[in-house]
């Protein structure tokens, strides 16, 4: 597999070694592929990264250190989207049109406290790339429930005796309903999935207006699994239809990765401690909800091709 990764990943890394993320941090994998992909797609551009309160306030480095190879603007929890828009507009006023302004916001920011701002930036079609770094709970504060937390999950505020009820917010479909130029879901679970991930980042870099990328990132301390399994768990999320990979490009929907032999949802849930309290009946109910969402999504999207799999090359 390493050979395939090397073919995809050849450029300078914009998240430096020595950053403060946990061992096995899935979002750390994602953010470097987002940044490196955007930089590679537009080699003459600069990047300004806008980060609301999150793990990444810490991971970016203790002052005066910067773990990123790009300029980083840290914001309060709720205002990352509008501040990205402001930076983009102000840079134009000072004659800088070469800069990609990118938000890296968590599921708490995006689905909860900053949702108004994300929706408003989309409605205005502000010229920014908004990346939802989704690890499905408030992880920086110690695993509390967010609007991105999936059905049935344990968190410290939805304990096993009263786990998360209701469904994870369908944030990417909500963003697509704004009619923005580009929406896509990203998962770095395997080499084909990474190729899909990078193709979507490249596509996003080439479009003006508001682009929304939803990246699923596994969190070892929050999801309760061994640190070496982050890519595998994200792969299972995709293969089980829990996290479908799709895009909506100027209104054209497409499933970009269609699992050949979908795995049961229990295979995904069973490798994570956050779901270990679930009964067979509860898992069956989650399976039914996942199936319903997949059917609804594929009814909207136009499945037209499968990505080549590593084994078929």
């Amino acid at each position, binding site marked *: 597999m390493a050979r395939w990764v090397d073919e995809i990943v050849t450029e300078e890394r914009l998240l430096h070694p020595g950053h403060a993320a946990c061992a096995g941090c899935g979002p750390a994998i994602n953010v470097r592929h987002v940044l490196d992909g955007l930089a590679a797609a537009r080699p003459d551009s600069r990047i*300004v990264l806008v980060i609301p309160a999150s793990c990444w306030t810490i991971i970016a*480095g203790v002052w*005066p250190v910067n773990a*990123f190879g790009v300029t980083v603007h840290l*914001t309060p929890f709720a205002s990352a989207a509008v*501040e990205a*828009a*402001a930076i983009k507009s*102000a840079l134009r006023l000072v004659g800088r049109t070469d800069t990609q302004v990118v938000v890296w916001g968590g599921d708490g920011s995006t689905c909860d406290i900053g949702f108004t701002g994300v929706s408003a930036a989309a409605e205005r079609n502000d010229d920014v790339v908004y990346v939802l770094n989704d690890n499905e709970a408030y992880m920086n504060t110690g695993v509390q429930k967010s609007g991105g937390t999936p059905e049935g999950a344990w968190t410290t505020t939805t304990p096993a005796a009263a786990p998360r009820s209701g469904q994870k917010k369908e944030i990417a479909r909500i963003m697509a309903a704004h009619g923005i130029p580009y929406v896509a879901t990203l998962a770095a679970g395997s080499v084909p999935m990474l190729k899909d991930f990078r193709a979507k980042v490249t596509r996003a870099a080439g479009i003006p207006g508001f682009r929304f990328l939803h990246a699923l990132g596994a969190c070892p301390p929050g999801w309760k699994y061994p640190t070496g399994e982050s890519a595998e768990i994200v792969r299972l999320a995709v293969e089980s239809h829990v996290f479908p990979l799709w895009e909506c490009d100027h209104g054209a929907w497409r499933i970009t990765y269609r699992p050949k032999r979908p795995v049961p949802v229990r295979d995904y849930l069973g490798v994570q401690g956050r779901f270990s309290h679930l009964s067979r009946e509860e898992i069956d109910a989650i399976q039914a909800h996942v199936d319903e969402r997949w059917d609804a999504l594929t009814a909207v999207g136009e499945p037209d091709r499968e990505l080549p799999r590593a084994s078929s090359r």
Partner: protein
Amino acid sequence: MSGTMLRGRTVLTGDEAAAHAVALARTQAVGCYPITPQTIVVERLADLTAGRDDVVFANVESEHAMLGYVIAASRVGVRTFTATSSQGLLYAHEQLHRASRERVPVVMVNVNRSILAPWSLEPDLSDSLSQRDTGWIQLYCASVQEVLDSVLCAYRIAETVMLPVMVSAEGFLLSHTAEVVYVPEQKDVDEFLPSFRPPDDWVLDPDRPRTYSALPQPVEYSQFQRRVAEAMDEARGVVESVAAEFGVRFGRRKVGALDIAGAPDARSALVTMGTIGDSALELLPGDDDLLLVRVHAYRPFPAGELAAALAGRSYVSVVDRAAAFGSLGPLGADVRSLDLGPGTVTTDYVCGVGGTEVTPVTLRWALEHTRANAGRIPGHDPVIVPEEVR
């Protein structure tokens, strides 16, 4: 006046005067979210900036977003403006603290309006006075002309000390009241207010990868706050020097920190803010034993100048147009903090709340109450003036 600037001697409301000053300042980015009675400020600016490539007028989704917008735009090195009122200012509270601590020279007009509950559109100063500790320089106006002039001075002050400035004007009493004003010529404003040139190290630069507002260790965090306090101290002198320069350049008086009138050696002094200071002038004819002090620059608090003005007065009556719950009103507490000596009785009066009218009758009542009750009002208690005294 849609889309066109008025010049010279003309008639404007406070909101329109603020918009004129912002346009004359060649402001480059305006963040907008509407709230009564601020709306005319942003409506006029929308007209004045429509179709221009050199200005961004951003309609955003909340006051919190609006402050975020101007803070971030300012970090790139452009001159910014926003305006709000009442609930909007409170909704943006988190961003206010951050603006000063990030040393962002945003200028904001706050049109004073009382705050929920219950609902009211009428003026008092509770909204902005409750933002006292956010690190903003605060200027309070008593006339439409002072609104216009203070916005221009605010940019000079903000960009000199790198702190945000809030120019406050009471709703309706100033925002919607038309007065004769002098609108300066663009070339004079350009000479008074050169382009915004922030320090290189402060500007958010895509070519120099750094993390701004990165988490420091406790000692470094403390040092950042210390620098904000030092900048606020520096602002005391800058408020005065900018006002003096304004007066010379534009040929009309500009108040610095304090507007002082009446008899310097009077036994009684009345300390006010905003339009009440203008009403107080009606007390002077026929009373040669009264000193009036209107606080224009509330933060940084002009403690030295105010103590000098009040030293030797027997009776000091302070007027707070803001609710005081459980302690003195904001201005009363600040005046009480001055060391005026045992020969001075200071009493704090709460009146004018929620737009209740404050007339010379109200103010005379306060002055007489201070004399009549000298030594009988605990210094830590405000006197809530009966609403019928007006």
